[in-house]
């Protein structure tokens, strides 16, 4: 555990000094500031931010994650030759990669949002939910990046796989969902749609924020079902479990691959 924290610390130190993470933070900060400053009201800002968060965080996390793992490959070998358990090394590298990304997001988005939260009477619940889901999505997609980059030695192939994964989660899955909704449009679909949206972390994150954002009323009966479901302790804990599952599964898979791998 101590070793993990040490590795995390140096990994984070390295990441924090890199140009891309500064750029990533600056991008979030400027976008949020821009939206707050020029947007008509904070509600619209949060919706625009939601789009950015749901789109960009998974993409940036998985791409930067994959590339960083490849770039650090030689250094990983150096560390592997040190008296460190492979599991600890994996965990340390994961955290050293993911935590700076989380911090970049929280600083870039959270600071300008929370700084104005009081004055505009904005919905704190939405902001908190947006920040929470943004963090979890970063953690999930960084873990996926670790799996991909550990599993595939060919960089081009690995990067392609990472992009494909993102595309699946961000677009293709929704496409399948929409196709299902369209084909079965004459049937009550609240529960199947609910189930499907829990199973994709991006959809789940969006649903959780949207419900906080009183969009539920737009959804009529569907919204009522969703609100009722996520309003209960069971629903909330199911949603949380789904996110934790999505966090643990790639981490666990990545760790297994990493532990068995020949470098």
């Amino acid at each position, binding site marked *: 555990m101590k070793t993990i924290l040490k590795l995390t610390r140096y990994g984070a*130190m*390295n990441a924090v*000094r890199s140009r891309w993470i500064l750029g990533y933070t600056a991008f979030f900060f400027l976008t949020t500031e821009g939206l707050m400053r020029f947007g008509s009201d904070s509600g619209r800002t949060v919706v625009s931010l939601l789009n950015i968060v749901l789109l960009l965080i998974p993409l940036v996390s998985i791409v930067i994650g994959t590339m960083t793992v490849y770039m*650090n490959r030689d250094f990983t070998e*150096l560390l592997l*030759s*040190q*008296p*460190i358990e492979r599991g600890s090394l994996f965990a340390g590298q994961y955290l050293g990669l993911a935590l700076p990304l989380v911090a970049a997001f929280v600083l870039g988005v959270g600071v300008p949002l929370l700084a104005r939260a009081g004055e505009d009477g904005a919905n704190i619940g939405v902001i908190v939910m947006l920040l929470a889901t943004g963090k979890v999505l970063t953690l999930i997609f960084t873990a996926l990046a670790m799996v991909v980059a550990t599993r595939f030695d060919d960089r081009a192939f690995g990067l392609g796989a990472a992009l494909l994964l993102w595309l699946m989660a961000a677009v293709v899955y929704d496409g399948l969902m929409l196709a299902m909704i369209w084909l079965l449009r004459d049937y009550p679909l609240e529960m199947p749609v609910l189930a499907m949206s829990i199973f994709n972390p991006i959809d789940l994150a969006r649903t959780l924020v949207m419900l906080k954002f009183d969009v539920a009323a737009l959804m009529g009966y569907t919204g009522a079902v969703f609100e009722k479901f996520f309003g209960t302790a069971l629903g909330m804990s199911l949603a949380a479990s789904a996110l934790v599952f999505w966090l643990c599964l790639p981490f666990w898979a990545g760790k297994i691959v990493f532990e068995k791998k*020949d470098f």
Partner: protein
Amino acid sequence: MIELRNITKRFGAHTVLNGLNLRFDAGSITAVLGPNGSGKTTLMKTILGLVRPDKGEVLFAGENVVGTSEYRKGVGYMPQIARFQDNLTARELVQMIRDVRENPSATREDELCERFHLTEHLDKPLHTLSGGTRQKVNAVLAFMFQPPILMLDEPTAGLDPISASSFKDVILSERNEGRTIVLTSHIMSEVQELADTIVFLLEGRVVFHGAATELLGRTGEKTLERAIARLLQESSSQRENTMRDNVIQETAQ
């Protein structure tokens, strides 16, 4: 002392190490030689635990260490490619390795830095350093804990002649202090200068294992370079013979 017993490693259909049995003694420098793809790097990585053998044991002080990590406290490794987390400074990197090895008492760092003229570069981010300088950082990392075993992969590659020769002095003095040193190199003069023992690998098998002088004697050549070339020639004609024999046998049947 390290001992390999019946080490076999396959990558897919390709057998990289084929039942290797080797011993590396304390107080000696062993050079592992062989053409590209002969298994040198895999051998080193197997000892370091970067590659898991399919079969066989790696004995370290008499104990099989395959799949463990503690024994690496006694191993210093100098990889061929010196790439690090580039935004750290050399000093931070040294501190990091010291932290994870939980060995804060390593004291040779200053001496080594001075010896390699690294002191002035210690506080620069690693990505600003030249390849040679980084290689020196690599050397410091491998040597600073005074481990009983040193694994050096092409240690002088990228070093200027002055640094290289001063580095070779360090290696020799380490040997004299009783450490087990395993190295690979493409520079035969360097091998001749440093190595007490030579392991020659070909297609995952040990073709020659013995003193450098023995190799010269056996091949009747004056330099190691020629001796190695001879060895390669012999083994390739041997292989042709074997193949021819097989063909004859098959046609005879």
